[in-house]
């Protein structure tokens, strides 16, 4: 079974991606020469594991060259070097963003519609496999640090489409981190296309935000009550991606004075959707999710019955969500800077490139300064999360910095293009609309 789907996945793989991967220095370095292994990396869980094993074996060989036993690792030093694996993933995602996301962004935004092929093609990146436990067919490697790199690079392609792609991955990450065994066994294989119609992986989304002006993610109006069959839910959720098209929603609601998440299949009675397009995020098909007397069974409460240290942690959930949004904002801002540098060098006024004017050049310099600032704060918080250290303050500060600075960069991106920036001839006005969501949204994403 696994082998069949492995082969199927290989066929579905984008060639551009595969050749980029094959040419990657890391692949050369570790001698991952068997074509199947190379191609497989991006394609399937199986392939992912193969490469993992290959890398692990190589590094083991290196360590054991002189039959010296590996010493206990020294305490870590301040370091900003990505691992080989992270660099490899980064390059693949960036290539995908360049070739498969960018070309779709403008039309998708205009039509407020998710391109049909996007979600299936993004499956080839294998993002959903990372955090799924090995016994359920994934790699069992939930890495918040790698996830922020992925989020940044996807959003460098397009912010709103990255949101759509990461919606399902975020649900997978949440179930892998906090779900109980029954929930994991029921839902996670479906994200790999097992037990589903035509072996097509299911899509899912997280719903936290509610339509009130002073919405506070800690004080949810959506609430759940205990009853004989399980839980009864009522409430309204806004800015939900893939509204009406996903198969499963992970919904935040207040239950017994605590904030919890509930797994709600889209077809559950009492669940209705209304398209509610917004200023930005248009191609992610955001909408309002209405829950009216929604009856859920006892397995719907995420992490129900887990031992204490595996129990759902709402604050961590919100912090991790903010970090994903921050990483996406960084990617979008980086895209803006990459776009503007050639533009201000080529655009002439008063007989010279406008980049020769300090008023223009300093805006570019400040974009760079603030992008670097945002990135370091997000990396610090995500790496603390990954090591299991307290990261609330770091995530909180990262979010506050990104809210301010990314919007500043968004508005300056339009400004630097002048009147042209105000038109749809350039992507800056889209970035401007998308980046405003940073200080608006809670939830929706998860590392």
């Amino acid at each position, binding site marked *: 079974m696994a082998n069949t789907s492995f082969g199927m996945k290989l066929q579905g793989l984008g060639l551009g991606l595969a050749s980029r991967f094959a040419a990657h220095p890391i692949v050369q370095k570790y001698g991952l020469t068997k074509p199947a292994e190379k191609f497989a990396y991006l394609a399937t869980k199986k392939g992912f594991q193969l490469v993992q094993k290959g890398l692990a074996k190589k590094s083991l060989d290196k360590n054991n060259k002189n039959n010296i036993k590996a010493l206990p690792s020294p305490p870590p*030093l301040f370091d900003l070097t990505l691992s080989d694996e992270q660099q490899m993933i980064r390059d693949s995602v960036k290539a995908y963003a360049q070739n498969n996301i960018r070309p779709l962004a403008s039309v998708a935004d205009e039509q407020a519609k998710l391109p049909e092929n996007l979600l299936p093609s993004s499956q080839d990146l294998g993002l959903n496999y990372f955090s799924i436990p090995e016994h359920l067919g994934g790699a069992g490697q939930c890495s918040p640090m790698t996830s922020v790199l992925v989020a940044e690079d996807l959003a460098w392609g397009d912010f709103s489409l990255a949101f759509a792609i990461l919606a399902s991955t975020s649900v997978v990450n949440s179930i892998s981190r906090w779900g109980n065994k029954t929930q994991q066994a029921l839902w996670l294989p479906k994200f790999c296309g097992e037990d589903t119609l035509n072996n097509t992986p299911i899509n899912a989304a997280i719903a936290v935000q509610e339509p009130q002006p002073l919405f506070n993610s800690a004080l949810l109006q959506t609430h759940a009550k205990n009853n004989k069959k399980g839980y009864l839910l009522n409430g309204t959720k806004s800015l939900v991606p893939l509204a009406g098209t996903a198969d499963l929603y992970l919904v935040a609601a207040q239950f017994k004075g605590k904030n919890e998440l509930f797994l709600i299949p889209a077809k559950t009675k009492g669940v209705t959707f209304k398209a509610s397009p917004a200023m930005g995020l248009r191609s992610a098909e955001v909408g309002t999710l209405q829950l009216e007397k929604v009856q859920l069974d006892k397995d719907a409460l995420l992490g129900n019955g887990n031992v204490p240290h595996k129990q759902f942690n709402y604050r961590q959930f919100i912090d991790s969500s903010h970090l994903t949004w921050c990483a996406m904002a960084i990617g979008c801002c980086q895209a803006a800077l990459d776009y503007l540098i050639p533009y201000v060098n080529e655009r002439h006024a008063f007989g010279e490139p406008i980049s020769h004017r300090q008023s223009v050049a300093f805006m570019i310099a400040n974009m760079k300064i603030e992008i670097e600032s945002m990135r370091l704060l997000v990396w610090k918080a995500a790496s603390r999360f990954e090591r299991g250290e307290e990261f609330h303050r770091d995530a909180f*500060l990262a*979010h506050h910095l990104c809210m301010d600075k990314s919007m500043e960069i968004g508005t300056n991106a339009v400004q630097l293009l002048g009147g042209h920036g105000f038109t749809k001839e350039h992507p800056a006005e889209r970035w401007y609309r998308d980046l405003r969501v940073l200080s608006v949204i809670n939830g929706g994403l998860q590392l």
Partner: protein
Amino acid sequence: MIYLEVPKKLRMLVNQARQTADHVFRPISRKYDRAEHDYPVELDMFAAIMDGMNDALEDGGAGSGKLRQGKKDSSQIQNGINMTTVLGLAELCRGDVGLSLTLPRQGLGNAAIAAVANDEQLARFGHKWAAMAITEPGCGSDSAAVRTTAIKDGDDYIINGEKIYVTSGERADAVVVWATVDKTLGKAAIKSFVVEKGTPGMEVTRLEKKLGIKASDTAAIRFNDCRVPRANLLGTEEVNIDKGFAGVMQTFDNTRPVVAAMAVGVATASIERTKELLKEQGIDIDYKRPAKLSSYIKAEVYRMEAELEAARLLTIKAAWMADNGQPNSIEASISKAKAGRVANDVTLKCVELLGTVGYCEDELLEKWARDSKILDIFEGTQQIQQLIIARRLLNKSSSELK
């Protein structure tokens, strides 16, 4: 592996610097703010202890006199002298920027000597306190326009000109002077010379009265036919049009993160004290609700803390790159630009938030708000840093992007 914490091996040093800030600097902070130009004698003892500490450290110690670019070695990550220096200095400046600047043997001239001196020069000047003299009455940020001349005469150079804003210019044992050996050859002809205190023809003509960092002396120095041996020229004697000036400028890649660290230190002091005073008023900075659901004061503290954390990480990053032999000109400028403006913004904002408590001399907050301004000016102003960053990003020369 991504790790953005203070490494364990440096935590003791950071803690020592913190103790120094609290127990050596803070108690005399106000005294030397009021008694401008009085030499802080308390520092002599401390400087000797610090020398010993630095020399005893693994990896060659810390401080301005030790700064140098690390060697590129991809197999092993280093947290070396540059990082040790920025982390230590940020803590010292949390105590007092002016006093940190007047620490014997920690002058910017020491950084220049460490960066380019040969072995013979290191032996002669390595343990001397050296100030840096670049600015002139007619040139500030445009350091390529120096008019001070150094004319070769046998085995000596004869220096003529006037230098201003020389930090520790009166107290230091020596001054590193930037002078041109041939005005017609432009910036490539600018060389630096070590002039020792007491050399005939060198005279301190004035000490500035300043807005802040009053514990640190800022001198104007005149050179009248001041004769220095040829062996005091730092770097190569020949004038190389292609890369002459670049060598002199290279010092800045190491010293800009150091000044950024000073800014991080003073901003940390302001926020810490502000939070203490707010807590006495029942305002607890708890990171519970986002800024828009908090009071204005809390929202401002959150904003400042986020900015400060960014400045701090950018500074450590620039130092980390220097330690690991990675070219860091742009990162050095980014750290200096960000930390300089953040420190100025934060210290001024804290005074504003606390009203007269912040504004009056009973607290040090007003002093920190005065001290911080220089950090966005010296070692390259905010605007110069932005020019450097922009030129790099846009691939422009200094004649194109002026």
